[in-house]
């Protein structure tokens, strides 16, 4: 079935149309929307685009980094100031997917996708959205918990604070097919250290629940401690708490629960 393509110059006009038409879908890079259209998804009757420059703007010079929703993974990789996000960006698809897929679209990508979002969740990112109500900022965790209900909103940008050191932010994607492949599980950890102790630990997991989640029990095991073997072991054994992975072609729920602690231990102890 043919769909109507509506292209707008401003993001706010596009947001207005998205919020008033349930069968409209925003087109980011199209890697998932076009796949749905090619498969004959009749729930999409129109596709909305915005050619607003604001959606492709990067502000990465200061301690707080803001990325327009339309930024592709290839753009992230081309930006030296975004080095801390290179590992998550590089872990996605093949080169063509990285040239097309956007970080805004990644927030909506279902399992086994959404790898970049795992990194953003560990970095306590803020998502700026526009809807019929105007624009507002939502903490990424809240955004993901209500992802199903975000259908009518346009994501404008994502922002986060740059980790203080490369040691403080770590990312690992477990895939069967290399160099590209869907996620068996994805892990990201942000471990700011203050006076030798972890202060504000964030562990985010992908493919361990219907959306990306924080591993709160593991975070509690790390908080206020130094990153020694006993702390790492405690965090690793708490990694499955609160998770609800499912079976798919890449791995069973059982397998995911078995390996998540192993990979968290390796991530925290800096092993390859």
């Amino acid at each position, binding site marked *: 079935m*043919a*769909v109507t393509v509506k292209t707008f110059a401003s993001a706010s006009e596009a947001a207005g149309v998205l919020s008033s038409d349930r069968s409209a879908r925003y*087109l980011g890079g*199209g890697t998932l929307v076009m796949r749905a259209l090619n498969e004959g998804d009749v729930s999409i009757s129109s*596709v909305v685009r915005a050619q607003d420059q604001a959606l492709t703007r990067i502000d990465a010079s200061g301690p707080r980094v803001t990325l327009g929703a339309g930024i592709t993974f290839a753009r992230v990789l081309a930006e030296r100031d975004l080095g801390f996000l290179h590992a998550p960006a590089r872990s996605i698809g*093949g*080169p*063509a997917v990285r040239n097309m897929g956007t970080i805004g679209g990644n927030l909506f990508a279902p399992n086994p996708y959404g790898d970049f979002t795992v990194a953003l969740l560990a970095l306590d990112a803020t998502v700026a959205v526009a809807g019929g109500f105007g624009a507002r900022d939502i903490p990424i965790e809240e955004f993901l918990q209500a992802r199903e209900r975000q259908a009518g909103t346009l994501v404008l940008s994502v922002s986060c604070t740059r980790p203080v050191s490369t040691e403080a932010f770590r990312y690992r994607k477990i895939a069967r097919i290399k*160099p590209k492949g869907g996620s068996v599980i994805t892990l990201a950890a942000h471990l700011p250290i203050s006076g030798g102790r972890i202060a504000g630990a964030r562990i985010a997991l992908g493919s361990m629940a219907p959306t990306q989640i924080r591993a709160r029990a593991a975070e509690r095991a790390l908080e206020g401690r130094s990153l020694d073997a006993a702390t790492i072991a405690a965090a690793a054994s708490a990694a499955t708490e609160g998770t609800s992975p499912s079976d798919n072609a890449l791995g069973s729920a059982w397998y995911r629960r078995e390996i998540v602690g192993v990979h968290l231990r390796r991530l925290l102890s800096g092993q390859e």
Partner: protein
Amino acid sequence: MSKIPLQFRHNGRDVAIFVDGGTNLLVALRELIGDMTPKFGCGQGGCGTCSVLIDGELHLSCLTLAETVAGRSIETLDGMKQGPNLHPLQRAFADNFAAQCGYCTPGVLMAAKALLDRNPSPSRDEVVEAISGNICRCTGYEPIINAILAAAGGRVSA
């Protein structure tokens, strides 16, 4: 549903067509322009056989909304040969037996061209990475990698 006029550059020539809303670039190229070199494999982004260059960047034409290429420049395998001669990459593929059934070959050649245009002397790992979105169902990856390295090293005559 009315047709949408669309103009873009196709292998260096301006083309003007009418598309239906939602048409993907692969269908536009094959059915409306008659360029059969980009192949339909999966329509899902998974195989890479529909790969084309858009403004020099590797894209999957099956996942590209045709309307989004208005005014842009598309390169396909059809535009790769240089006059009567094969492109060095094509020559290297022939010399190194890099095609079996040949179905993946157009997409792999576009991915390889995107790489060499940017990085004329890639490492083996960079070649592997560059074609990682292209599935060869005949699984002849080694000769493909060798062919791309040979073309990069200039060890094949054009």
